[in-house]
């Protein structure tokens, strides 16, 4: 209905706006009643709306969240573990576990340990996509039947997905939704953008401390601009916790690891020696604990140390340039004084069951090793395993200067691991430290230092110096050379972020991607990709007409045209897109 207005910032929002304006009026030329402020004056309009609610589904690596648009939280949060994958009518999880105490379940190898608990993994080489479909199908059925209490009438759905999810998985999910659940339309929205929406900001850097990967996404005016990732995330954390518990268990005098081994050897004596050797080869590679229990311990007891505890006192004072008040409360609470403080953790799934006494101090180690890895040299990391503060820093560094200015003051921490007490603070402080020490200068090393020193002495350019000592100036100082387009953009941008904080590190609270999706679904905003049932059933994923590379301009235009101009004429329109999720 509205042509895209010039200027990049308008485009995306015009989507939302026009979508919201258009949806109740499907015909492209139907006269419109002007929107009045009634809704906001008299509270939520959800009670006024009689039509069916949109179902919002967020699928992550471990959890599926399902609920209705307009709710602040999902109605159902489901995970998919081996218990959920049992056959119908297999009630063994309800049978008393006493029989299993004597013969505890053997744990699978460490590589497979976590796999049963994932809904999907990005590595599709040896995973079965139709199994993923089955899992999603069962979880959604459970959610719809038990939690949402809806029947199998066709309805609108909105799917919140990470934007880098492999296309076969997207396609499998959509197949499930269209074939099994009679979805009328499915809107695809990207999780980081939704996190930004749920924080009330337009630009942000979203740090998703997820399961398989930590994904850092910068969102600029509701568009994802860049994404970097690291394997330092929940999966690694749980493995670290496992190693810690294994260490402690074998160290503990109360626990008899010797005896355990003897028992095993006794059991194996009847077997042939060959198998015994083989069995022992497997032994160290296998976790001694069930995944559930290890995850339980991780969620319950793991915490994160603070920068103040890691640094000398002098550093905290100098941090004042960034955010002093963030640091202050940590100093008095120096908790490292009591190394003897033990936490007794009962472990049931190991053989034999027992209690492990863990020094409270050591419970912060897994977190430390997973997300910071401070013991290693910064240059020793591979690209996919950068510690999180460094990952965020490099991400910010790689952003254009305006984007960085906007994003750095809108840091959103989401994902399961952000619930670890102290982790967000720690990451934030590490980032502050990094910025303070290094500035926004990608060049590092001795040579660079010398050159810079020389340059600074000579005082040739202000810019180099700015990059060297003043972070904030570097981020906000306008680019010296300007063309007309730049100026226009500058003008709009000034209006947009008018009054918004820039160039200062700041973390913002977000309600999470699901809530953002719920908000967007509630406001009837237009998603980048909205798929129609008929078209999907006809064409499948091969019908997606977008070129592979993400050409934002074309994409916006196309989705806009599809969304607002060709709406209602869906049978005629063959152009639809999966947006950022690509094409075959």
């Amino acid at each position: 209905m509205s042509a895209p207005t010039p200027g990049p910032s308008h485009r995306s929002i015009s989507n939302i706006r026009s979508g919201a304006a258009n949806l109740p009026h499907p015909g492209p030329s139907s006269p419109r009643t002007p929107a009045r402020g009634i809704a906001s004056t008299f509270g939520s309009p959800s009670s006024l709306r009689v039509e069916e609610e949109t179902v919002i589904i967020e699928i992550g690596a471990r959890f599926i969240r399902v609920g209705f648009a307009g709710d602040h939280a999902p109605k159902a949060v489901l995970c998919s573990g081996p218990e959920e994958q049992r056959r119908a009518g297999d009630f063994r999880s309800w049978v008393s576990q006493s029989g299993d105490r004597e013969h505890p379940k053997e744990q699978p190898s460490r590589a497979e340990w976590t796999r049963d608990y994932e809904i999907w993994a990005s590595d599709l080489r040896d995973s079965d996509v139709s199994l993923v479909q089955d899992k999603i199908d069962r979880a959604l059925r459970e959610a719809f039947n038990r939690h949402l209490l809806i029947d199998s009438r066709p309805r609108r759905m909105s799917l919140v997905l990470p934007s880098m999810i492999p296309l076969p998985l997207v396609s499998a999910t959509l197949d499930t939704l269209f074939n099994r659940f009679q979805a009328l339309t499915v809107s695809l929205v990207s999780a980081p953008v939704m996190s930004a929406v749920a924080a009330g900001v337009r630009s942000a850097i979203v740090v998703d401390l997820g399961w398989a990967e930590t994904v850092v996404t910068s969102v600029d005016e509701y568009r994802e601009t860049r994404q970097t990732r690291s394997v330092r995330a929940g999966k690694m954390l749980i493995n670290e916790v496992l190693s810690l518990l294994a260490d402690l268990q074998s160290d503990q005098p109360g626990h008899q690891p010797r005896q355990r081994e003897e028992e095993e050897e006794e059991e194996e004596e009847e077997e042939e020696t060959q198998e015994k050797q083989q069995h022992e080869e497997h032994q160290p590679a296998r976790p001694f604990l069930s995944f559930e229990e290890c995850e339980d311990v991780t969620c319950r007891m793991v915490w994160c140390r603070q920068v103040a505890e890691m640094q000398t006192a002098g550093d905290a004072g100098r941090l004042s340039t960034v955010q002093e008040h963030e640091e202050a409360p940590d100093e008095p609470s120096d908790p490292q004084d009591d190394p003897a403080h033990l936490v007794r953790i009962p472990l049931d799934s190991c053989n034999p069951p027992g209690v492990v006494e863990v020094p409270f101090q050591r419970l912060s180690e897994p977190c430390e090793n997973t997300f910071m890895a401070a013991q290693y040299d910064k240059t020793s990391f591979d690209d996919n395993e950068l510690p999180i503060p460094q990952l965020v820093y490099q991400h910010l560094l790689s952003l254009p200067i305006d984007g960085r200015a906007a994003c750095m003051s809108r840091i959103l921490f989401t994902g399961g691991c952000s619930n670890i007490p102290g982790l967000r603070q720690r990451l934030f402080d590490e980032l502050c430290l990094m910025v303070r020490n290094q500035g926004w200068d990608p060049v590092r090393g001795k040579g660079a230092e010398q050159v810079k020193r020389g340059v600074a002495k000579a005082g040739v350019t202000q810019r180099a110096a700015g990059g060297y000592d003043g972070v904030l100036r570097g981020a906000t100082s306008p680019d010296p050379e300007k063309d007309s387009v730049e100026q226009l953009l500058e003008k709009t941008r000034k209006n947009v972020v008018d009054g918004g904080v820039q160039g200062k590190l700041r973390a913002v609270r977000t309600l999470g991607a699901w809530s953002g999706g719920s908000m967007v679904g509630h406001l009837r905003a237009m998603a980048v990709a909205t798929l129609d049932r008929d078209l999907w059933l006809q064409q499948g994923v091969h019908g997606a007409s977008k070129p592979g590379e993400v050409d934002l301009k074309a994409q916006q235009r196309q989705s806009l045209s599809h969304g607002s101009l060709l709406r209602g004429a869906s049978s005629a329109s063959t152009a639809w897109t999966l947006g950022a999720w690509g094409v075959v």
Partner: protein
Amino acid sequence: MAPLTPYTYIQCPCSDTSFSPSGAPTSDDKTEPEDDDRTFDPRAPRANYSLYPLEYLLYCEDCHQIRCPRCVNEEIVTYYCPSCLFEVPSSNLKTEGNRCTRSCFQCPICIGPLVVTSLEAPPEPTLLAADNTAQPTGPYVLTCSYCNWSSTEIGIQFDKPNGIYQQLAKMSNGGKPRLTAKEFRERSRKEKEGDPESPSSPLTNSDVDAELQFSQLKAFYQSQLNETNPQAAAGLGSLADLGISSPGSLSRIMSMYTGAGHGASHKQSRGRLPVMREARTLDEGFQEADLDDSALIEKLRASAFEDTASTDQRLAQQPSLPSHHPLLFVDDLRPIPYLLRTKRSKRCPVCRHIISKPESKISNPRFRIRLIAGSYIPTITVRPFHAPESHNVPSGLRPPVPAELWLAPHRASQYVLTFQNPIFEPVKVTLAAPAATPGRFASTVTVLCPQFDISANTDMWDDALKEEGEVQLQLQRRRAGEDGGPAQPEPGKIWERGRNWVSIVVEVVPASLRLDGLPPGPGGEEPDRSPLKEDEDVLEIPMFVRVEWEADTRDDVGSSTTTRDNKEAREKRELAYWCVLGLGRIARG
């Protein structure tokens, strides 16, 4: 692990056909040779999703097809609370959510039901009437009669014994009241005006929980949309400027009067700016993150492992918790309002016929229509084959049964499969089972009689009315064998036959579970020697069952007379499906 009792699962045919992935082009290249040649592998991870016990399956009479829970369309008949059995109208569901809004709660610790009790000591029961009639007075708490949890542990007490849900919704743990959006607006207005009677400290982040923040954000976005909306029309602005009657300009004019949000006026003065801004203040739903978790860590340090909430407890909680920080401790948990339940009627997705319809009254557990598969397809039961004479031995002298249920590797053992025909037509059953079970440990399977007929399910008394001698004779002949020695199952012969049932014998030779004995793969590659997975020691036989029978073309009662006259009108029906027979665990060693 206990040896398991033999079981039967049936694979719903829907999982084969209707679910072909359209978006996986690569899967076509590496598919198994032919659909018909493919043996169903009960151990494949996908099998768990398509196998159902017979009791779970329904049957569509019109399509003559099995319907599993995955391939039916459902319609909700009623919503009700499983605790108080009150019916909830569907309109309430929209406004009040999917949980019981009366006083039904589950214990957050043990999910037992909670009851409302008064904190006041109950009056002495020995006292006489006048005092006893007095109702107990508040404050009230929720207590769990199973684990003795009480809501005082999370600092929550109630003034009234009813309407607990509403009272609870207004409180956060610790008894601190939760602000609603309205109260928040009220307070922030007072603050701005500098109202001296503003009672409490200025509003902070901690006053705004997720629900409030969401509603504030929602209001903010809505006001932004309304503000920017008129100018959205200005995208077509050149057209809209034509006259006041055009909706675009009308809405613009409207917005001048109604768009009284924050900063609307100065935006207007700056010229057209069709951009939504971001939220900035607390009452717009913007919050700087409260990163400081030191109090949380301190609390964690001071508490024992048991003070933290377990994964199960956390997952059982309502996902929309009004807590500010992640749920970590037991005292962050809240009573769980009961999830409502539904009664659903089910339809065949193909022909739309109702195949299951419950009574709409909640207290009535009966069904008006329920076409369970068990009354249409043969029931298969499995039991270990005992030597026939054991029937005559007193039970005390029989060998202990559990010992036999462990299957010894490399030793042939026999099982009796009994097929019972539920329909009133004779059926012809054809069985097919792979010679070796799929999976790493291939046991050999021999179905001694893969094809047989079962007579119709006639009146139950027919058995008795038949000459007993004939039946007995038949059984005895089979059992006693021709040479008078103990009967042996013979290939190609039925073991036992009754009125509407037939037993056959299946012989299995379980494989050894030893990992070193695994044969190399087809290409000569190294076999998978990873340790035994769960249930991999269970001997499961996939078996393809084909049932054929002749039936009247019309099942209607009214037309049955005409068809009976016309014998040619009978049509042949068949039903084919995979089923899985679980025989028992193979002994290790």
